[in-house]
């Protein structure tokens, strides 16, 4: 089961200036709230929500660091990953990706494993349960990223990922329902893509 999905920025890699060096979570969905311990004392909904948001930001920041370190180790300059033109298809198979573990209590109550993928100046990440099938998680993340690219025109200039919430939600509802990783063979994927297109066209 996936606990959360997020799209975030990767600083130091885009053309954005100034404040954009901060890591920003552009979209996130948490699948079901985390089981929280029965702590005494008041804990209003506002605090719960704040905690949730901070947790996701913490994941995004760690993914950003992991990505930066991987990039550094590869010895390639960051510009190497920028496309020549925005129309050029991105070879998703080669998109840098990785995985790291979050220890219990930091930032989530229970241990989690994060699978991340870099898409030029954006990062996508799945926060999974500790013993999730990582091969499946990784291929699902690649699939989701491909669909996001196709349906949101994620990387073409002018488009705004911020105002396409419905599309992201629809993609997730089809391919990662309630955070369930699905064993989809190619025919299943095609059938779901058809369904997705119909629901987005309406």
């Amino acid at each position: 089961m996936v606990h959360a999905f997020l799209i975030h920025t990767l600083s130091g890699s885009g053309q954005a200036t100034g404040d954009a060096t901060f890591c920003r979570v552009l979209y996130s969905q948490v699948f079901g709230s985390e089981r929280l311990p029965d702590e005494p004392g008041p804990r209003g909904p506002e605090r719960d929500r704040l905690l949730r948001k901070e947790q996701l930001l913490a994941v995004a920041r760690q993914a950003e660091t992991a990505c930066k370190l991987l990039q550094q180790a590869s010895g390639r300059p960051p510009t190497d990953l920028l496309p020549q033109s925005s129309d050029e298809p991105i070879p998703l198979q080669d998109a840098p990706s990785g995985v790291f573990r979050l220890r219990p209590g930091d930032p989530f109550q229970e241990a989690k494993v994060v699978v991340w993928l870099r898409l030029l100046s954006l990062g996508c990440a799945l926060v999974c349960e500790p013993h999730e099938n990582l091969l499946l998680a990784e291929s699902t993340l690649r699939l989701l990223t491909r669909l996001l690219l196709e349906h949101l025109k994620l990387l073409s200039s002018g488009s705004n990922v911020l105002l396409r919430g419905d599309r992201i939600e629809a993609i997730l509802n089809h391919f990662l329902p309630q955070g369930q990783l699905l064993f989809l063979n190619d025919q299943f994927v095609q059938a779901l893509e058809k369904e997705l297109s119909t629901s987005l066209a309406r």
Partner: protein
Amino acid sequence: MFTAGTESFLRQAREIQDQELKKFCLRITGLLQKEDLGNETIDCLQRLFLIVSATKYYRKLEKKFVELLLSAMYFPKSPEQVQVLCAAILREISPSEDLTLFYDHIQNTKLLSLMSSVLLAQGNKRDEVRDVGLRVTKILESRQPEGQSLRYLLPVLSKVITLSPKVLKEDQINLLNKRLIDWLRYASIQQGVAQISGGFFSNPRARQPGPITEVDGAVATDFFTVLSVGQHYTEDQWLNMQAFSMLRKWLLYSGNDGTETPDSDDKSELEGSIMSMVSATSTSSRLLPPKERLRENAFEYCQRLIEQSNRRALKKPDCELQKACLVEAVIILDLLCRQDSSFMYRTLSCLKTLHGRLCGDLAYVQALLPVAQFFLNHSEAAAVDSEAVYQHLFTNIPSELFYNSMLAFEFIQFCRDNIHFFNGNLSIFKSSFPNLFKFLAWNSASLISEFVDILPVFIDASTAIEMLHVLLDLPCLTAALDLYLRSSFPTAEKPLWDPSLKPTSCLDGVRDPYHQALFQYLLRPKAKGFIKGLAPLHELLKPMAGCARVIQCAETVPILIQLFFTVVTEFADGTLINQLAVLLLGRSGLLFDVPQFKAAVHREMSSQLLVLCKLHPSLVVELSKELLEFTGTIRNIHSKENIFTHVVWAIGEYLSVLYDRRCTVELINKFFETLEALLFEITQFRPSATLPKCCPRVITVLMTTLTKLASRSQDLIPRVSLFLSKMRSFAQSPAMTSVYSEEDTETILTRATELMNLLKMPSVAQFVLTPSVEVSNPRYHLDTNTSLPLALQMASRLVEKEASLLSWQVRGRPTRRPGETNERTMRRKDSAEGEGE
């Protein structure tokens, strides 16, 4: 693309004030009330979603407005976009106290799934998880509503059991077990029909469904699985895919929830599953209770997946899926055997064959880990020898695939999860540590935090020495692995190494037989003791030292060394401690020349040397030869200043008969002479020598140590006093003032004066500089928790017994600095100087 425009847009969304938000909500209210569900409404809802999600702070939406969003979700005419957006907004503002959902009447499973996602986000304050679970179970149990697909509900069920383990009752679990059996085992093996409305041009013959095929295009020979291919899928085939996706979770849930007693199963429940009654071919399993039957079916399903994963897939994505399925199947088989040992023998033979297959095919390497896990869990119970499995896993995989970061992560996770096994008698694991370090050397940034968990397991008296060498050579190993890849795949299209670096000389050098042997040693798969002389390899690999991956790896070494010593000092005896100390002294000069690596490692080595001395003070006597050699080499002051200072301090501290009876006057004199000559050289000959400036701390520590030694062999006192008195003229010489700042000179002179004064009273000097264990061990002056009575007792003892001594001493110290009240303070300063790195 994330641009400055997006950033400012995000900021605008964050900065929207409550008043503006209220107005905006009013506008949406107007639209929704008019039942205007067109583009304008959708656009407004998109913006509202952004506003509530862009900030981590709570956005208050009116209760009435929340209800309106809810009813927009329910509204039958609402397009999916509106429903999805409303759900997303409600989820974003959750947990929300204004939210009351009534969904008992909802038959639309898609909508129900959407609602569930909102409810499950509420934090289970009002038992929402339970409500959702019961509702979903009820629909899954009952006859499927017309035109509705159950496949939207299985993920909800899966989430519910993840969030709250005690939601379902046993009879519900049993019923769901039966449904899962139907979906898993008895899905249609004919393709589904395309959902085209029979238009004028549609060809009725084209819609004839064919049989399901395998991933390689052959007609399916057995039941439907996720690896079965068809042009279109039927409802039960969709459910099959969903059911398998949640199978592991479900088996864990239904098997471990205290519902182990099968006696509740009565006949009426057996009839609940109509399909399985009709199409079941095996009669023996049909009489089992549902839980056992589900396990039986899960077992068959996994076996079929293992068989299917051996086919050559026509499409690349299916090939990827085969790998994921294989991993999942093995994990489920392991789980089944843990839950019911009667599966063991069937699984065993199946996995043995599989292992043979996997050994020859690196494409499926990830499945080796669950296979090994199975053997770890069960080989003892099944009384089979699984040595070959571990042997292959630990020997071949790390050396061949260390660059696969996902595998590396899973491999180390596997090791961490099984530490309890390895801590027993699995020698193969322990002896494979040089191999496992290849994962770390290549993926150091992502693996270091995992590695600190497993490192302690490798360390015991037999491996400690080699391990420390391996740790110190880690960056060198990274460089060697880089070269290994370059020489193994010279024409790789997407090189795994830094393409900007062209270490031609290294590649040539590695090929000559002399280097080749060292290279092979560095890349050894198993521990085989330490050989001397990796220095030529350091020299050869020097061009790689600046490579980013090597630097990243070098940064992890101090952390690992620290951890290593924390573990090793728990069990190390005198002999091992001596070996480690010699190793540290020796290796301090033999380190791979990575920027900043040396300094960081020296810092760590210094503090660990002190730890070793403290633990085993006799070290100074036992290793006197090595220490004399080390301190007698003037080069060491400059190249290893940190370590040198610490060693000198340790000599002064621990070279005493108090710590070791073997500490003779001759030995003290020997050390004294060596250090004296050294100090003489750096202070008196300095102006003429070309040696670089020596840190004032080295000088003060040397002076202090000489004084300490003199206090223990009092014949030396006149010598050291004379020496110390010469320090003033030394400090005022022009060569000296040109190198040292006034502050430095002042420090040196103050220390010299203090020591001189102390030496004027040999008995006091001895008490201060070499306190007996009974005086120094309680360390009242350091213990912040000393109770008042203890402190008073101590004070009175001092006053009564040593009153005369104290008063005399205070009067007798002309250059006492403010704040220094007695000799104890001074001692503390001195020791802090050595230790306080």
